[in-house]
């Protein structure tokens, strides 16, 4: 059974400024976000992810297009008439109010009875593990605590959709990693649709049900984390997510489900195709470093090694001078399997290299 649609954007565009200085922040973006989904907008700064979030929240009006919440048109409604709540990047906690007053704010605005408000506030404090701290002021809290209050303040209103604008970017690494698990668990528990904006791909991959990778105002690819990582459709997505080798190759013909390619450096491999296969056509292949197996041989030499804890990154120089990065797990005692100067050959499983549409 397909989940109902929580948020839909239809051909949404947003242009800032006029004339020669005009900036096209969003360019005809259409996306459907389902209920009970942890949906992430991922991309570098300026890609339009925050703009799309703000359009859903109501802080901006789209230049063109429509925005629907559960089937209702909301693109013309101000933020205080939309049943969504936002967790801001800077938390935006009201400095002159206590934690409890902050959390209660949205409920007060909607004239919820006082007893219900108090009950909800206590419930929320428990949900974000801040019980007993209701009387503090934001200035007295740590960054992590402020973030939890911002979360509680939004969730207290039981919104249909929760919008999170890079909420973890101000936290240090350990805290961030802890919050990722907590946010994911929270989403599962409350069943609220989360729309999460981040530029951190690790965050997106670990937390999301689906990711929309964005660049220059457009969605480059939309799919589950595995899909995005294993099957990037174009150069941008392949480059932005994880590490990739970009290998120039010529198509040699078809071989079953795969395409035979002759690559620079003298590598022959079977790649996964995209679209039509024309013999002799020049294509770019994306090949992830960890998909390549290094074995002793004479195809190339190890030019550099970089130890990264669990693995070692090898930079292999091939016969024609081109370089390829390979990532291989270290031995049980932590030693790298190869050192600089070793002769190696590369083993690439069929389909590991992917053709990119460009």
């Amino acid at each position, binding site marked *: 059974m397909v989940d109902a649609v929580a948020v839909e954007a239809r051909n949404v565009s947003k242009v800032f400024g006029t004339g020669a200085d005009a900036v096209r922040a969003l360019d005809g973006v259409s996306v459907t976000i389902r209920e009970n989904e942890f949906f992430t907008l991922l991309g570098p700064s300026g890609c339009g992810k925050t703009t799309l979030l703000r359009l859903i*929240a*109501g*802080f901006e009006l789209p230049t063109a297009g429509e925005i629907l919440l559960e089937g209702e048109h909301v693109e013309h409604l*101000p*933020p*205080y008439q939309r049943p*969504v*709540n*936002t967790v*801001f990047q*800077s938390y*935006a*906690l*009201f*400095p*002159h109010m206590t934690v409890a007053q902050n959390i209660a*704010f*949205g409920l007060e*605005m*909607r004239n919820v009875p006082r007893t219900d408000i108090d009950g909800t506030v206590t419930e929320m404090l428990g949900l974000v593990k801040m019980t007993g701290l209701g009387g503090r002021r934001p*200035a007295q809290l740590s960054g992590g605590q402020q973030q939890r209050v911002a979360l509680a*303040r*939004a969730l207290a*209103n039981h919104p249909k959709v929760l919008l999170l604008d890079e909420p973890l970017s101000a936290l240090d690494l350990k805290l961030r990693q802890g919050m990722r698990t907590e946010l994911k668990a929270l989403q599962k528990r409350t069943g609220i649709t989360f729309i999460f904006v981040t530029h951190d791909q690790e965050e997106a991959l670990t937390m999301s049900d689906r990711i929309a990778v964005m660049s220059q105002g457009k969605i480059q690819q939309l799919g589950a984390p595995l899909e995005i990582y294993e099957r990037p459709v174009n150069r941008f997505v392949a480059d932005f997510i994880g590490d990739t080798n970009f290998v120039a190759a010529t198509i040699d013909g078809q071989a079953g489900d795969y395409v035979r390619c002759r690559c620079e450096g003298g590598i022959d491999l079977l790649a996964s195709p995209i679209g039509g296969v024309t013999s002799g056509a020049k294509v770019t292949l994306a090949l992830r470093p960890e998909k390549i197996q290094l074995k002793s041989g004479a195809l190339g030499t190890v030019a550099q090694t970089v130890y990264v804890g669990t693995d070692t990154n090898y930079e292999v120089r091939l016969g024609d001078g081109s370089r390829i990065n390979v990532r291989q797990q270290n031995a049980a005692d932590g030693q790298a399997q190869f050192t600089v100067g070793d002769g190696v050959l590369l083993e690439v499983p069929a389909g590991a290299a992917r053709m990119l549409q460009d």
Partner: protein
Amino acid sequence: MAEQALSASPAADRASRRPGRRFDLKRQPGFGAVAVTCIAVLYAPILIVVGFAFNESRSVTRWSSFSLEWFEKVLANDDIHNAAKNTLLIASCATIIATIIATAAALATTRSRAWRGQTTVYTLINLPLVVPEIVTAVATASFFGLLAVLAGISLGIGNLILTHSVFCIPFAYLPIRARLEDMDLTLEQAAADLYATPWQAFRRVTLPLLTPGISSGAALAFIISFDDFTITQLVAGAGQTTLPLYIWGQLHKVGVTPEVNAISAILLVISILFVTLSFLVGRRR
């Protein structure tokens, strides 16, 4: 790298050869002395007036002994009572009017993209700061004179209140504007996100956070009105004496007397108190 650079300079070498002396690159010889003297001289007249108000003898240059006699005389003086009442009335009313107007104007002119007429408003509000006081005094006197002749309208002390309001507005406006510009815009967005209408957001978020700025501005406006002499002198009608006007009258008639010193001391202390208050309140987060 900075350390190496300093040791390569002969000036630094000379300085560092002196035992226990670190090279302070900011120090300029004599500047400290000038600064301290300057500030001392700035405060000297104020301190002298206040000091000699406590002087027992009638002399304003030779100290004899401590006395509160002149203050007692001043506080019992009916003319001074009258002047004080007028001054307080004008200052209070002008402050209220000016602060309300300045708050509205600050809200209109800050934190938004430029709108048509914004520069005009800004120029108009700050006009009193630019025009010399004597010119304002002359213009206002002519204006009210004409009004009285043409339409027989005289607003009584309202004349002074309205005149004072005009030049108090910029003094209230500037601290409020500063406070507004410092305020985080996302707070109002957060309020809207939490179902607050623009009016509710203003009342529950903007206004409480703006209050220190408003108080600070009001205190400054009060003092400016309280201390005004030039404009009040030319605009005031019969019987509309204020404290500065009273002091001037006394100076003219009998010169500097201990009573004048005493009332002046009181005025100075009030000014200092209000300004300190404004400064402290304005700094509160």
